[in-house]
């Protein structure tokens, strides 16, 4: 299993080689290309678009050619990409939504293809307040997926929907794509229609933790539909995108996120893709001088997950029991 990390806060557009080399040196063979950092969500919600996606596809490819070359030279594969989001702003101007849907989305697909990236992560629409139910909300997300699915099929890309959260007075609750059973039915139905895997799933550990979702059960339901991961941690209250194992909510100071369940879930479905970390904010938190160490530590945690998976599934034992047996052998 390979390790990956998002490019945001690591890759500098003026010198992408440096960042990719740093990633490779830390032990990451893959990158999650943060295309969303070129048109950020808060600007989109405010209706304040920059001109980045006004470029033609050719111009965009030229812009990213140094990135592509640098990744190749460093031996880092662009395994997954994050499309800008949201792709629909409720109550937003028609021109805004038209631009997102008909310019930003298809150009993102083109760039994904340009990088030779097999997976692109998209966000489902958050419309339950207006439309009344998750089912009706999904109908609109599905319309969007159908708008880019033919491109995905032609380019051999799998669009990945992600479990999201929504907010109520600062309290984060379940958002789109948090019902594993519905997710499975929808992915299978859409893929059957296109005759190929145009749709898959991105499991986001941090978002799942915020909604108190049972990691092991959810991953188990997804099975082969799980293509991409966003690994990060939080306190169960805010979407902090921090390093796994860093949060505790009790005096015992044990992790309040179910990382064992995460590893067991991946093992159960035989997940063999990329353990990809979505931990860009960590690199804002640490001083510049410690950036390389922080990246290295994240990779080390990835390595730990791989090893844990092996122990659990080679021995069939729970971690604590295994450690106990090792000590008393």
């Amino acid at each position, binding site marked *: 299993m390979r390790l990956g990390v998002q490019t945001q806060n690591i890759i500098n557009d003026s010198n992408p080689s440096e960042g990719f080399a740093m990633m490779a040196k830390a032990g990451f063979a893959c990158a999650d290309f943060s295309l969303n950092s070129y048109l950020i969500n808060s600007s989109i919600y405010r209706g304040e678009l920059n001109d980045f996606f006004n470029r033609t596809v050719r111009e965009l490819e030229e812009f990213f050619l140094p990135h592509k070359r640098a990744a190749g030279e460093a031996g880092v594969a662009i395994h997954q990409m994050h499309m800008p989001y949201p792709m*629909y702003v*409720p*109550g*937003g*101007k*028609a021109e805004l*939504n*038209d631009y997102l*849907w008909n310019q930003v989305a298809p150009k993102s697909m083109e760039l994904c293809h340009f990088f030779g990236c097999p997976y692109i992560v998209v966000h489902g*629409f958050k*419309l*339950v*307040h*207006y*439309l*009344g*139910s*998750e089912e*009706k909300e999904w109908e*609109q997300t599905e*319309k969007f997926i159908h708008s880019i699915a033919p491109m995905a099929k032609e380019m051999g890309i799998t669009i990945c929907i992600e479990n999201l*959260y929504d907010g*109520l*007075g*600062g*309290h*984060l*609750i*379940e958002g789109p794509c*948090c*019902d594993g*059973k519905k997710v499975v039915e929808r992915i299978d139905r859409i893929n059957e229609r296109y005759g190929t895997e145009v749709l898959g799933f991105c499991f986001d550990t941090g978002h799942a*933790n*915020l*909604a*108190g*979702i*049972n990691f092991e*059960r959810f991953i188990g339901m997804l099975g082969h539909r799980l293509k991409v991961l966003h690994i990060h941690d939080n*306190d*169960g*209250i805010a979407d902090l995108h921090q390093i796994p194992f860093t*949060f*505790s*909510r*009790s005096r*015992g100071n*044990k*992790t*309040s*996120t*179910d990382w064992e369940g995460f590893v067991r879930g991946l093992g159960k479905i035989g997940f063999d893709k990329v353990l990809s970390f979505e931990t860009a904010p960590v690199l804002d938190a640490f001083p510049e001088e410690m950036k390389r160490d922080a990246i290295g530590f994240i990779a080390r945690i990835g390595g730990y997950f791989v090893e844990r998976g092996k122990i659990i599934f080679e021995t069939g034992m*729970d971690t*604590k*029991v295994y450690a*106990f047996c090792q000590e008393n052998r």
Partner: protein
Amino acid sequence: MTEKTNKEINIVCAPAGIVSIKSPGRGIACLSDAGFESMLLDFSLCCPPEELEKTGKERGTEAALAFEEECCGESAENEYDGNGSISLSQSFSLIEQCQKSGMRIKIAYAPYLPRSYKYSNLNALLAMLAKESIRACGQAGCKYIVIRPLFAGIPDEEIWSRNREYYMELALLAREYEVQILLENQCRDRNGHLVRGICADIYEAISWVDSFNETLGEERFGFCMDVGACNLCGMNMYDFISGLGERLKAVVLRDCDGSHENALLPFASVNNGQAQTDWLGLIRGLREQGFAGEMIFNMKDTISAFPSLLYPELLKWAKAIADYFKWQIGMENILKKYPSRVLFGAGNMCRNYMKCYGEKYPPLYSCDNDSAIWGTVFCGLEVKNPQCLKELPEECAVFICNIYYEEIKAQLKDMGIRNPIEYFNDEYMPSYYFDRLEMKAVPDRIF
């Protein structure tokens, strides 16, 4: 706000924080004075979770507890033997006092453990208390009892089998005492972080209830939805209610900030002027289901934090909030109660009525005090002079679609209108437009 219908929500007040188990008379009188007519028979007043925890820790040897903690799920040998002092005997005076005061008891809640309790040594005691609760429940003429599942010290893979055995045994007693057992969505304590526990997954909740009932060949099990637990786990309440359907017999209404487990007065937990519980999803779901079960109002922590001298006013306020929920949830029932209806008001509220209910419960017309719009058509409705209401057929109801309810109601009374007058409200609607009338129009469709 409401008129009696054949099938309607029963408002139940949880006594915790209000009624003392040792001398329940005063607390019950307080509830009664506030207008509550039903009370939850809460057996955890006799043996609170923290008392049970203390008992468990005293009875479990240090080594056994340490071993369990290490191995997370191995069963300790030192289970409670049933000979301790914990019992529900004090509940009899509570039941007696309720009966004397005319306070109805229709639903009960069995004792339970703190969510963080990890050891299996109290499971036998819990089973004993659950049985004792069912007997007391039956003797009090109580219809439902909420019994939480066994979880402490039980490995994940045995949760279903152990609880199946547990509930099947309880069901035989429940049958004898003609009581229905309600399962409830649980939180699981993950080192201080409360995440989705047993029956918090809607598919699991459905399968447990249906499987038990199928085995028994009768509807001995139903479901109680704990809104606070849903909120702590950020669950989609609308979907949860829709999934449960007729299995849903009771709802525990309590507020919290989504992070700490509290039982606050609904609408009390706010941040930046916004509620932190999804009341919209809850009301949408319950209204759509036509929910007419037990609505348990639990505000234990709010009560505890208030000065006791303010209890009477606080309880009256709580009753008003409970009535508000009942009214909002029953909104569609009110609409369908009348053979025909007209609306008063031709603004956003009327527009929202027409969006959500216009087809199902079409009004004859709308009227408005603004003479400039008489004779116009708004959302497919003719807007008339309110004087036209004098010619309404007797059974036709006037639904006021404007927040100046009292003023308009007085106007209608002054006009001599004798038709039923109801308040319509659009704060919790099945769906919304993306805009309001006063805003610049935005498209209401997505491509």
